[in-house]
């Protein structure tokens, strides 16, 4: 009796598992791999909605290749191993043609082997530390040279900053970015004692000592700026502490790479006016495309207060390019689309044209904005033209000889220009 | 200076030639009762937050004796047992088991392995296990982790358990979960567990609380039969019961010994009459009822 029940229980669960749905309708499936719960839900739900909005819009235009698009949304729940599992689910069970997804580096690293194994295609829309180029991923967010280095240039050239505080959350993006910046600053003649590096844990909320240290460091005569790679939740208490300790943007400006409109929406920005952020997109930029995008977004979310931000634009560009590439290739086959992607051009929301390079990174303009009291940014500086995203930083000893080129004859994500070999990967 | 001297002294002690190191020496389990005395309690003091639970308490128990401890609530009976069995650390004083075992530097398990068994005021048995398992666990065996892991019941042990089961009258219930036993049966089981461990000294806290008169009588018989071979110390409120079993009675009052002697001697002792029996003698019926009511 017992055995029977046991058998049926296990068989039941096994059977339902095995009989997972494998529908094959005549649609093009777009996988969305963004966390909808857990710590990253704050940022990633917005991107999920963006993809859904783009899919809806594309379908209004009649879809692609005569087929409708169908979004398949899964929730990896801010759990990194789940990104791999859900990625596999999207590719093998749902058989999606493309995935838009990931926010954190670790989630991308988690899903990457799956993409490469199953030859999937993913668009990654967030600024990141670089040092990666996979055949199966297109990086539409900024690489360090599209965000950090122009920002530091601006600080040095336009604001006359001579001392730098590199403050970041202790994970790979700030670590790498700060390594690059440190090398870059030293190359520019900034002395070691004029660079202060500080790391804090995720969600750090007690910034008293650090802000006070920054204040001291900045009070020693030379013009000082903070380059912040502080992540997500830790920003609000950080800026509150800055405001309360009376550090104004004129004294010690803070330039942030992870603070956008969405992060500011949870913050009273009055004490922060004048602090900076470097992005490829700001909501406040005036252009027809941007206005249209913002209106569309507010209508889609039915919330007139919703803001737009840089990763959304990156998603937008990625989606447009993919749609174009599919049209050009006439198929959704990954290899064909991958080749068709290279050289794709799409209008930026901020004006100008974004180009997908051979290394799967975009050429985009870089903007620097000052925080305003309405939670928006005012562009105070921008690059003259577009900046090409660099997969491998020239300022890190390990990667300065590496380049990425996915066109024939190199076809390699990490090609060593000295040894003329494609290190790793091809085995 | 004294610290250095102490260290040197310790070192000297460690390297004495006439002794092996303590951790190499075989553990002495044999209790030295050359003086016919099994328990020496001297000058015990213990206070909780200013309340003196034990106050310079002295107690000597002969080997093979059946001793009753009586005293009002808060007189220190249970606390004394706690100290003897290692549950509570005392502030000062000495407790020796036989002449050679200082109980104060041992923990509960060690003390139990020396052969001191204890029954709690509230019957405590392993409710989720069978009566048989309860007794098996209490058997006098090597109680280290590995021996226990690989131990198997020997026929002698099974016989011993059967014997105990018979003594405590639970032979029919051997495979019942202990939690399903009645209150009295649990009391018996707990006593049985003590017996299975084959102890030298039994400390029994209120054994007949909640028992029917017949059960009480049986318990009295059992305890009396145990004495001689083993030493038994009983704490009890039920004067009738005490009278029926006791040869020597010790009265505790406010943490120290007030009087000691036979029941008759105690009953005629002035101090005792004043602080304890006196009240009860005056209104004995009521008093005993009250005590029983409290225990039920």
């Amino acid at each position, binding site marked *: 009796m017992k055995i029977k029940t046991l058998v049926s229980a296990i068989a039941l669960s096994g059977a339902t598992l095995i009989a997972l749905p494998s529908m094959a309708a005549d649609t093009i499936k777009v996988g969305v791999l963004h966390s909808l719960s857990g710590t990253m839900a704050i940022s990633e739900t917005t991107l999920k909605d963006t993809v859904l909005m783009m899919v809806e819009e594309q379908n209004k235009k009649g879809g692609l290749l005569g087929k409708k698009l169908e979004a398949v949304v899964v929730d990896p729940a801010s759990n990194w191993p789940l990104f791999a599992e859900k990625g596999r689910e999207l590719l093998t069970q749902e058989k999606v043609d493309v995935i838009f997804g990931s926010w954190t580096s670790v989630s991308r690293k988690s899903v990457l082997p799956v993409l490469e194994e199953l030859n999937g295609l993913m668009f990654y829309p967030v600024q990141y530390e670089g040092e990666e180029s996979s055949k199966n991923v297109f990086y539409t967010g900024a690489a360090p040279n599209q965000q950090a280095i122009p920002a530091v240039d601006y600080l040095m050239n336009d604001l006359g900053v001579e001392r730098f505080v590199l403050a970041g959350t202790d994970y790979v993006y700030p670590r790498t970015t700060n390594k690059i910046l440190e090398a870059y600053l030293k190359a520019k003649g900034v002395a070691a004692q004029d660079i202060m590096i500080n790391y804090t844990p995720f969600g750090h*909320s007690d910034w008293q*000592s650090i802000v006070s240290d920054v204040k001291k460091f900045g009070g020693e005569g030379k013009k000082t700026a903070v380059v912040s790679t502080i992540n997500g939740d830790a920003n609000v208490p950080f800026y*509150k502490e800055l405001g309360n300790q009376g550090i104004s943007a004129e004294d010690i400006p803070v330039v942030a790479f992870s603070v956008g409109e969405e992060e500011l929406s949870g913050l009273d920005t009055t*004490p922060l006016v004048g602090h900076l952020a470097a992005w490829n997109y700001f909501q406040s930029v005036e252009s027809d495309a941007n206005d249209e995008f913002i209106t569309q977004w507010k209508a889609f979310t039915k919330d007139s207060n919703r803001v737009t931000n840089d990763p959304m634009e990156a998603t937008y560009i990625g989606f447009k390019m993919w749609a174009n590439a599919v049209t050009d290739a006439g198929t959704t086959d990954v290899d064909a689309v991958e080749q068709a992607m290279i050289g794709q051009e799409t209008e930026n929301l901020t004006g100008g044209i974004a180009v997908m390079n051979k290394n799967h990174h975009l050429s985009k303009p870089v903007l620097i904005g000052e925080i*305003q009291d309405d939670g928006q940014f005012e562009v105070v500086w921008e690059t003259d033209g577009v900046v090409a995203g660099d997969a491998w930083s020239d300022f890190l000893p390990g990667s300065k000889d590496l380049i990425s080129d996915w066109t024939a004859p190199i076809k390699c994500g990490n090609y060593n220009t000295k040894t003329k070999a494609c290190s790793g990967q091809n085995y | 200076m004294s610290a250095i001297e102490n260290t040197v002294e310790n070192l000297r002690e460690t390297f004495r030639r006439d002794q092996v190191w303590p951790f190499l020496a075989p553990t002495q389990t044999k209790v030295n009762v050359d003086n016919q005395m099994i328990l020496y309690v001297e000058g015990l003091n213990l206070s909780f937050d200013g309340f003196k639970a034990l106050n310079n308490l002295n107690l000597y128990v002969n080997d093979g004796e059946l001793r009753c401890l009586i005293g009002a609530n808060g007189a220190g009976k249970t606390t004394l047992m706690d100290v003897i069995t290692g549950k509570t650390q005392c502030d000062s004083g000495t407790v020796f088991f036989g002449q050679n075992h200082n109980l104060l530097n041992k923990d509960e398990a060690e003390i139990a392995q020396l052969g001191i068994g204890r029954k709690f005021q509230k019957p405590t048995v392993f409710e989720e296990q069978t009566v048989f398992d309860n007794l098996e666990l209490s058997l006098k065996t090597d109680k280290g982790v590995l021996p226990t892991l690989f131990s198997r019941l020997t026929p002698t042990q099974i016989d011993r358990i059967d014997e105990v089961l018979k003594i405590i009258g639970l032979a029919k219930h051997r495979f019942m979960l202990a939690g399903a036993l009645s209150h009295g049966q649990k009391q018996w089981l707990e006593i049985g567990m003590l017996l299975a461990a084959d102890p030298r000294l039994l400390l029994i806290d209120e054994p007949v609380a909640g028992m029917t008169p017949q059960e009480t009588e049986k318990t009295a018989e059992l305890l009396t039969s145990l004495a001689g071979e083993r030493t038994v110390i009983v704490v009890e409120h039920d004067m009738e019961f005490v009278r029926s079993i006791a040869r020597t009675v010790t009265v505790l009052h406010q943490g120290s010994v007030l009087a000691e002697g036979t029941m008759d001697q105690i009953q005629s002792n002035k101090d005792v009459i004043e602080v304890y029996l006196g009240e009860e003698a005056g209104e004995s019926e009521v008093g005993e009822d009250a005590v029983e009511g409290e225990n039920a």
Partner: protein
Amino acid sequence: MRHLIALCCCLFGLLSFSVQAAESSQQDPFLTELAGAKFKDMVPILDQLAEIQGEAILPLFHTLLGGDLYYIKADKSLVGQFDEQGATVYKDVFNQTLVPNLSKRDVKKIRVNNTLRGYLRNAIAQIQLTAKSPKVRESAVRELLSKLDADTVALIESLYAKETNNKVKEAMGLALSMHTASSTELTLPNRLVAIERLSSSLEGDARNLLTTLTKDENPAIVKAATSALEKIAQRANRFAFIDQLFFGLSLGSVLLLASIGLAITFGVMGVINMAHGEMIMLGAYTTYVVQLMMPNYIDYSIWVAIPAAFLVSGLMGILIERLVIRHLHGRPLETLLATFGISLILQQLVRSIFSPLNRQVSTPSWMSGSWEINPVLSLTLNRLYILAFALLVFFALVIVLRKTSLGLNVRAVSQNRNMAKAMGVKTHWVDAMTFGLGSGIAGIAGVALSQLTNVGPNLGQAYIIDSFMVVVFGGVGNLLGTLVAAFSLGIATKFLEPTTGAVLAAIIVLVFIILFIQKRPKGLFPQKGRAAE
């Protein structure tokens, strides 16, 4: 030279100015030039304005600095944006007359960036050297310390003799000393005296000047500067210590607030409430909702939010107690699991209602900024208030537990439940009330925390482990222990942080507590006696 002109303007033209300015402002060609100017071009325009108009230009500069200066698209005339009872109105910046019938579409903002703001502040300071209020004058002098040029020094020199206020005079004296000490044309004794005078100042600019002087060619100057610096460093270190102590106390007060509620539910009732953090979160969200309902009275919102948060969290606590915890009495581990489930539900609830994004809670103006004791020691006001508030809540709670009948009942139930029941105490009611009290206090903590950190669904998670640590470390059931534990952990963390970094400090403190509990399982202030077991 232009400063002198500006000065003359203010000194001699004071009477006529107000009239003149009001008349001339709108016609001034420079003013219309501001409209739509590029950042690069603005500084010369503003220079001109300052030169011509002197102090009269201040309102314009202030408005511009605040980012509230707009121009009307139609005629490029300037207006200031003001907020009156929640409505946006536009006024002439100089005479405050309302410019009617303007909507947001008709005007365009005149943008400012950091360079401009820096310029404006400096310019305002120069003009304000002659302001009426001594406070304004003093801060104006301090503002100028970092950019002492010959003009400014001359200006200060001329004002120094006439200055009546001691503090302003002191600041001016400092400025002059700095100038004297640094100017190589002056004689050595003069400079040495100036350096000596600088050694009594804690002003950062003075210190920077001295640091540069230690590289002077003249050995006497180097020596004097070095010893002056040492003197300053000694004093500064003392203040730095106080500063750090304050940081520790402040962190301690946050820990205290987060854990007092737990000290009651866990310490007194023995209930492990894993949803405690969510009670804090509810309090923080209540603050948000209160501010949403009274957007024009942010300064007072806190006073509404505190009782509101107490009620919301308290009622939620009572609900949880009645529905779940009551049934798990005496099973602490199960309670732990059930309340963990509740915490998940509450988080998701908040996420569904308020979205997963952080919500914006504004800081009342009286809580912003800091209390500057001297140039190296300033205490941030919000933390100061929260420290005081935490102590207030703590002692109020102690009084409630000591003096009220609820407190008596709570203590009775916690010490001997059955006896209390037998004495006629309604233990169920007391349980619910105690739990409500603990949760309500957590809600109040949420109000305070909303001023320091994110108001989001994960707010509670960030504090739950820390608060458990505090309560366990202090000794369960002992409010005083909680107080001591909170402050000692706060101070320890803050004193470790400079040497180890924030992450390692947190780890060290955690490991210390783990080890400490092994040594003293009952915490710092254990309950003694048989009742404790």
